[in-house]
Each structure stands twice: as structure tokens, then as C-alpha cells.
């Protein structure tokens, strides 16, 4: 019986080794020729990938067609779906994912005895700050790859865990529905352009806030609204919504408002429920009304008087010197 079981075990080891060699030798899956999503479960990882140590590990290999470039015509994206079991102690860690070493996903995790905070920045979900009091959580992050993130031929997808201090996790897994996507949707198909410098407004007077919309890409050019959120004490002249039946390549407009009191304010513009729903903020510095007389004329006059005084004193000095010589 013992001899049989040894023989069976040996055969099992040989088969497993052969299977392993076969999977290692099999070429990576070709992906990304059409819009779609390819999860890790299709790229070779069928179960959750448990990460227990800091460092970088390859979680998938894949191939892209010759001539592949980000955005031409497809945009390549990443999904990093994780399951965290937080350690109830102080810690700071970064979980990141990269294609060919170029990072496109980053979750910054800070933990303490009571809760955890997960911060992430990307071009699909924007800035996100999650405060989690549960001991376990799933976090789903999506983003566009870096410009040189996808490349022709063989590519690798890696996951890196950095522990900056303490300990963050009792366990950490990358779920098999993480993976790579390809889409025709541009990351910034509709751009909302606003003044980059603060607008200086005078309290009690009309001020214009100009904006422009730039549309590109293949989505239909339908109607949309631009809305402005005014802070307390601001009165809109012609409402807070600007409607466009269609915009073509570029559309522009301006909101007009009257601020009541002085101070620094932020006005938020948004295009809700359309395209990539862009938003933009503008700083408005409201100042008290100042007349030209007090702000420019009187100081200039005073400076001129002082300069004339200086000249008079210099003249008097010369004259006194001459008298002294005589």
C-alpha cells in the first residue's frame, strides 16, 4: 500500500510539474484589439492573489498587437479590485499596480486602532478618500494607463506593496476580477475650461465668470447643461444654469453674478450627467470698492511731493555748500 501511495504521489508530482511547465511555456494571451475587459482570471490568475510581504510581484502577462499606443485608437485602462482586512494598529502603506513598470493605480492606506483611510487619485473616479470603520473592506479602483503603459508585444502587470510605517493589513488580496480594459472613451472627452488665475471682483458690482467647453472624441454631440454653484452671499444675474443644444468642437459662455461681501470664495462649475462629467473650480477674490483717486492718484501725488522735497533739499545743500566756500 505504501509503495502504491508513493508511486501515486510521484506520478502526481510529475503531472503537476508537467502542467506547470506547460503553463509557463504557453504564450501570454493576446488582448486589447477591441473594446473590452480582460480580468486576471483570463490572464492566468484564477483565484485571489494574496499579498503578505512588501515588494513587487508579477500578477499577469499579456500581449498587445504591433503598433499599440495609448489612445490610438483605443484607450487602455486598469482595474485594481482589492480585499483588505485591516490591522487595528497605526500603519501607512501604498498598494500600487503598474504595466511594464509604469504605475497607473495607487491606493494610499493609513490605519489606526479605530479605522482605516484609503486615498486614491485617478482619471475615472477622480480623487477619492474613503474612511472605513469596518475591519474588512473591498476597494475597487479604475484608471487610465500611463501614456507609455501599454506597448506592442509582451507586457507585464505587476502589483507592489510598500509599507512606509507600522502595519496596515492582517491580510490583503488582489481579486481575480482586477485586470485590463480597452475603451474608445477618451479620458477627457469633454473639457471644461475656466480662468486659471483668481478673478478679482468688487463687492456689490457685476462680475463675469467666462468658461469654455471643448469636445472631442466619438460620443454624440447632444444637449448639455453647465451649472455653477455660487457661495452664500452671491446673487446670479441670469440664473445658474447655461444650456447648450449642441456644442460642436468648442462652446463658450459666461455666468454673471454680484458678490455681496469681501473675501476669498470658490465657485464650482460642472457638466452633470453628460460625457465624462467634468468639473472645474474658480477662485474669486472679492474686494471692497476703491476709487481711482485713493488707490492711485493720491499715493502718486504724495510720492511726487516727496521727490520734489528731496530735490529741493539737494538744491539747498548745494547752495549752502557754495556759501560755505565763499
Amino acid at each position: 500500500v505504501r509503495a502504491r501511495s508513493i508511486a501515486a504521489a510521484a506520478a502526481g508530482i510529475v503531472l503537476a510539474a508537467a502542467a506547470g511547465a506547460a503553463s509557463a511555456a504557453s504564450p501570454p494571451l493576446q488582448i486589447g484589439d477591441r473594446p473590452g475587459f480582460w480580468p486576471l482570471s483570463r490572464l492566468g490568475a484564477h483565484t485571489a492573489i494574496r499579498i503578505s510581504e512588501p515588494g513587487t510581484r508579477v500578477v499577469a502577462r499579456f500581449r498587445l498587437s504591433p503598433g499599440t499606443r495609448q489612445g490610438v485608437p483605443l484607450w487602455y485602462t486598469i482595474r485594481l479590485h482589492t480585499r483588505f482586512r485591516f490591522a487595528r494598529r497605526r500603519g501607512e502603506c501604498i498598494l500600487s499596480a503598474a504595466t511594464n513598470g509604469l504605475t497607473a493605480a495607487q491606493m494610499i492606506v493609513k490605519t489606526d486602532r479605530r479605522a482605516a483611510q484609503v486615498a486614491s487619485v485617478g482619471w475615472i473616479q477622480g480623487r477619492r478618500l474613503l474612511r472605513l470603520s469596518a475591519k474588512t473592506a473591498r476597494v475597487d479602483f479604475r484608471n487610465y494607463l500611463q501614456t507609455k503603459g501599454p506597448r506592442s508585444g509582451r507586457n507585464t502587470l505587476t502589483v507592489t506593496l510598500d509599507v512606509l510605517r507600522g502595519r496596515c493589513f492582517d491580510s490583503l488580496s488582489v481579486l481575480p476580477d482586477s485586470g485590463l480594459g480597452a475603451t474608445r472613451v477618451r479620458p477627457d472627452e469633454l473639457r471644461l475650461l475656466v480662468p486659471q488665475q483668481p478673478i478679482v471682483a468688487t463687492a456689490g458690482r457685476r462680475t463675469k465668470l467666462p468658461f469654455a467647453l471643448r469636445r472631442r472624441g466619438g460620443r454624440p454631440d447632444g444637449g448639455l447643461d453647465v451649472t455653477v454653484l455660487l457661495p452664500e452671499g452671491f446673487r446670479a444675474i441670469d440664473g445658474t444654469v447655461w444650456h447648450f443644444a449642441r456644442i460642436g468642437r468648442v462652446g463658450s459662455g459666461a455666468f454673471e453674478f454680484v458678490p455681496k461681501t469681501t473675501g476669498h470664495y470658490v465657485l464650482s462649475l460642472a457638466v452633470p450627467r453628460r460625457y465624462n462629467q467634468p468639473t472645474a473650480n474658480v477662485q474669486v477674490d472679492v474686494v471692497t470698492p476703491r476709487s481711482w483717486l485713493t488707490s492711485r492718484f493720491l499715493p502718486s501725488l504724495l510720492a511726487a511731493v516727496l521727490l520734489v522735497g528731496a530735490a529741493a533739499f539737494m538744491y539747498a545743500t548745494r547752495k549752502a555748500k557754495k556759501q560755505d566756500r565763499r
Partner: protein
Amino acid sequence: MTRRKIVLYRIGTLLCLAGAVVVLASTGLGASTPYLRTLGFGYGDSIYNYDFTSQAVSSSGVDWATSLLFYNNAEIDKVKNISSGKYWFYGSKMNFRLNDSGFWEWDQDGGKKTDTPSCLGSTRHYRIYAPAAFDNFYNPNFGYYVFGTSHYDHHELCNSWFDDSEGTEHDLANLFSGKGYYTRYDYAWFYNQQYGNQGDHHWSNDGYATYIRIT
């Protein structure tokens, strides 16, 4: 008697000139630093090329020139962690003006120094900045990235002076390169070349920033 008059007239001349200078400066007609400007990094991301002593954009209130860019997989604490063997002590906070998501905002950082302040010693010091609360920018050109300024503090607890931003930039380039991070010293022109003395502030910045790739 006449000599006394001359001295009094001269004092009067100086007082009038000083008064005129003060009036002109207070009305905003005074001199300004010509190198302060915004820099764009694509996709709407932009910064000022100096950090500031207070949260006001003023060419007369700058601290040091922006001279470092950490990119790809950077984050403020991660960068500080990598340099923590040498840059271990914290410094005083300064302010940085940046635009990540279509609006301008401030970030503050105290940075890291090579030693504690003292009466006779000197410490290299750098600060890193990114959108507050998130600690990095993202765009497809740079990945996750942050900016830094650098300088050298001397005799901070006695008759202090500050200089050699270029030397500290070089020191950091060597440090990160030595740890295996791809470093391009003086790689990009940031329009902030500045030399000369302003009180205890001695400028020595060649205007080129060093790029360090964090993995």
C-alpha cells in the same frame, strides 16, 4: 552753522527719498522678482516655480526654487521614507501653490533635514509638495508625481543664513541614484535660475530641475 545746515538738508533729502520709496512700494509699483511664474505639466496640472513663505502668491514672498520632480509611483511619505536614512529630521513648513483638478490650491510641507538645527552646524533640507490630503498628482505623462524645493541651512539657532539649493538638489540626486532609482540630474528647465544675495538668503539655482523616477 552752514555745515550744520548741510547735514540737516542731507538728512531731509534721505528722509524724502525713503518716504517716496515706501509710498511707491505700498501702492504695488515696487520691484518684483522676474522669475516667478506658473509651469504646466499637461492635462491642466500646473504649479508655481517657487514655494512661498505665506499663503499668498507674491514675488517678494518666495522661499526656494522648485528643483525636484519625483514621478511614476511617487507619494510624499514614500519619497521621504526612501531618503530617511540621511534626511531624518523635520523642518519648518512652507507653502506651495498648485493646480491639479482645475482649481488652484495650497499645500504645506515641513520637509526633511539631514540634522537638527544648531548654533554652529549646517543641515541640508528639502520639502515636497502635492495636492493636500492626497499627496500626489496623477497624469498619463508622469504617473503619480510630486514636486520639491531644496536648500542648505546654516547656524540656524544663532546668526543663520541659507544657501546652496543646487548642492542639496545634487545630494538628493546622488542619494536616490545610489538606491537604484533612475535619476536625471538637471533635466528640465523650470525658469527659476537665480543667483545673488538677499540678506541671509543666498540664491544659487541653475534653473534646471532634477527628475527622479520612483518605483
